[in-house]
Each structure stands twice: as C-alpha cells, then as structure tokens.
C-alpha cells in the first residue's frame, strides 16, 4: 500500500464541523455565565452578558441550547464511540499517551480511548446538568420542587459543571497539543500521515475506500 502521506483525508463533514462549533460556542457561553454566578471572584464575567440579572436569565437558556445542539452531535458520533477492548488498553497506557510514545499504543479507529471516554463523560454531564438545572430554574420550575431537592440539584449542578469544564480543558489542550486536530475540525481534512499516526485503523479503512 503506497499512499502519499500528504494526501488529504476527509475527517469531518461540513455539517459535523458546524455542529461541533455550535456546541463549543454555546458551551463556552453557558460555562462563563455559570462560573460568574458560581464564584464571587468571577462575578465580573456577568458583564459579558449584560449584568447580573441578564446572566441569571440567559444562563439556563444557553444551557438548554447547548444540550439541544449536543444531542444532534451525540447522535452523529454515538456509533464511533463504543468503547472496546483496545480502547481500554489505550487508556491503560496513558503514560505512553502523555509521553508522546504513540507508536506503542493500539491502533485506533475514528476515535481513541481518550476521545471516547471524553464523549461519554460529556453525555453524562449534559444530561445531569439539564436535569438538575431545571430543578432550580427560577422563576418557572423551582417552586414545583421541595427545597431539599433544590439544594441537592444546585450542589450536583455545580459539581458536575466543574467536572465538565475540567473535561473540556483536557479536550481543548489535546486539540492544541495534537497538531492537525484544530485544522481537522475547522477545515474538515487531515493528512494521510496524521490519520495513520493517530487513527490507524480508521485511516486504513478510509484509504481502502479511496
């Protein structure tokens, strides 16, 4: 098999990319507005949204919007994110991942173990944030729930959001670290060399398809 290593392979379709960035933008807005109401040191972030009351009004709507956009993305990528044995092996070899010894890792399909884990953490976090968020969404829904649930939901919401933001920080760093990833999500294409290095099984399938 001889392939021009510089040949471009389509990794993300136009609609997949736009979907991803819609989720990303909405997530950043939801996260910033949420953080501004979470810690006093970040209250100044409410200025980005038109002040405290407007941040309080907008945050839940941004949250619902990001979940809606994510649901579409989730359906698209669900099949490619089933965790298999080689993914678990990939995750067990996290030292090789961080040490840039990618040649020691099992060949991965469209997504590696880390990406799949990220996907499922996001699915769980989105769901948890949506459910807990509704429970203390004022002025509409909070009054329908007992105060104990409101308190519990508020705590879980903040804790899950923290996990989620940490996950996204890892996601963003991985994209900065792995050169070519940002281009893949911006322009849709990767080089054959990139694909063979990072997603060998997926690349071979793509190359076979021509």
């Amino acid at each position, binding site marked *: 098999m001889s392939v021009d290593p510089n040949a471009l392979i389509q990794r993300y379709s136009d609609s997949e990319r736009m979907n991803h960035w819609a989720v990303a933008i909405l997530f950043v807005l939801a996260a910033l507005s949420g953080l501004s109401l979470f810690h006093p040191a970040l209250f100044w972030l409410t200025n980005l949204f038109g002040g405290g009351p407007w941040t309080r009004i907008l945050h839940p709507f941004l949250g619902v919007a990001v979940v809606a956009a994510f649901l579409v993305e989730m359906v698209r990528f669900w099949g490619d994110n089933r965790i298999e044995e080689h993914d678990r092996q990939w995750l067990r070899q996290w030292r090789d991942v961080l040490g840039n010894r990618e040649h020691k890792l*099992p*060949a991965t399909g469209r997504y590696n173990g880390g990406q799949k884990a990220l996907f499922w953490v996001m699915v769980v976090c989105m769901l948890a944030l949506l459910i807990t968020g509704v429970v203390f969404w004022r002025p509409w829904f909070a009054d329908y729930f007992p*105060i104990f649930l409101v308190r519990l939901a*508020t705590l879980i919401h903040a804790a899950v959001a*923290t996990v989620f933001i940490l996950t996204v*920080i890892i996601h963003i760093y991985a994209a900065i670290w792995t050169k070519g990833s940002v281009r893949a999500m911006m322009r849709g294409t990767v080089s054959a060399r990139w694909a063979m290095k990072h997603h060998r099984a997926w690349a071979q399938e793509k190359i076979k398809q021509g």
Partner: protein
Amino acid sequence: MSSLQTLDVKQRSATTSPSPSIRSTVEVAKLIDISKCIGCKACQVACGEWNDIRDVVGHNVGVYDNPSDLTANTWTVMRFTERETEGGKLEWLIRKDGCMHCADPGCLKACPSPGAIVQYANGIVDFIEEHCIGCGSCITGCPFNIPRISRQDNKAYKCTLCSDRVSVGMEPACVKTCPTGAITFGSKQDMVEHAAERVRDLNERGYQNAGLYDPKGVGGTHVMYVLQHADTPQIYHGLPRDPHISPLVSLWKGALKPIALLAMGAAVLTGFFHYVKVGPNDADADEGDDTKPESAGAGVKQEER
C-alpha cells in the same frame, strides 16, 4: 432596602474581603413573646404601612392565616395553630413568622451577587434589591423558608427588621404598634434578659417547658421567640427544632468553590507545562513515513517495539 451609611456592615454576600468594620455597634434583637400574642395582626398592618407595600387581596383558605403565606409584599404573617393540650383544652398558638435575622445567614451565604445581601454590625440581615439578580439562591440557603421573589420585578424581598427605622434609633414598625407588648425590641442582651424573666413567669404559671428560641445552629438569631413549649418548637406551625444551613448549601458555597477553581487553574497549568516538557504531538513534523505498511500492524497485543 438600600445599604445604609449609618449601619456598619459586618458581612456582605459574594464578598471575600473584609467589609468596613472599624466601628462596633450594639447587637439588636426583636423578642416575640408568643404567650402574649392575641393574633390581632396589627403588626402585619404596621409592616405594610411603614414599608408601603400592599399585597393583593387573597382567598380565605379556612384558617385565620391571612394572607396564607409570606409573599414579596407580605414580610410578616401570623401563623395560627390550634391544638389540644393533654388536659383536653384548646391551645391557640399564634406565631408571627418572618425573617429571623440569623447571625449565620444562609441567604447571605448562598447569594452569588456581591452586596445584594448585607448583614449590618447590629445583626440585621438586609436585602439590597438593587443588586439582586433574582436567582433565588437566598431561598435555597434559608433554613426558615423566608425570602420570596416578586413576580413583578424578580427581586427577592423579606423583613428588613425596619433597618431604616433602626438606623435612626427607632424600633421596628411591628414593635411600635403591638397593642399587648408581645413584641419588644432592644439590644440582644437586654432581650435575652427580658426573655429570661418571661420564661420564669411562664414557669410559675405551669409552663414547665417554656423557653427562649434563639437557635444556636444558625449562630443565634436577631428575632427571638418566647415559647410556652420550647421543647417542641415544631408545634408552632413548623418552627424548626434545630435550624442550620443545610450541609448541601455549605458544601456548594464552602469547599466546592475554591476546589473547583483551583482544579480548573491546575488543569490549564498542567497542560501548559506538559506542552513545555513533551512538545507538540505533530504527525506531519515526524521523521519518516508513518503510512508504511510494517508499522500499520500495531495492535492490541503489541507491548513494546
């Protein structure tokens, strides 16, 4: 209310640095002697009069409570409880409900908006509505179910203990108007002493369990009750026996806040230093050709190469 210059601030919501506190003022308290209350609701009227708030005309729900609950326009409400004593006699317990002005206020702890809730040095906990964002966290934090958000302006309201009157040396409007002297106001110390006299009197009259309600779980309160049955405060329309800020709220507004921010900052820094140490993972800059077939067989079983 607006934050008053004449009352020094002890703490304000969502503020981690000290508030202006070089002066110390006497801690005040309102003492409500339930054994003296006749349920005339003059205090409710005086509250509405002084604060210039009018609730909508509600519905009779079959009990004397009117309105049936606190609202953004009703900052105090008489709660009537009819109960039968062991001797088979009727006992009518009438509790004037409203903000307790906790020394450790759950509303203030939960509020995310800097300065929307302040606690003055004299102990009064006041909502500064112009800074209120309407999120309802004060409701989540309050152990007494007091704050109410107005449907009109989405701001939270509750009893101010007439902070405007107190700041100029007057007693709260409800105290001023109470015809039986069931409500008294003064320094917290004086009120505790006065309560002790009242409890002694009630004891002599056969109320063995009479006592002062100044719950320690919230650091004591600046509205206190003299109860005929202090051993069972819950019979007074659900007055909590041991009110305290919910541990869920404490965790949310305590440990989680700094830990979450530290973790996020640490994650970003870890990424940065990882990049500095390991460098980019750049396929296109790699030496050689990764598309070679021999390297394409890397699989699950491969351990070292």
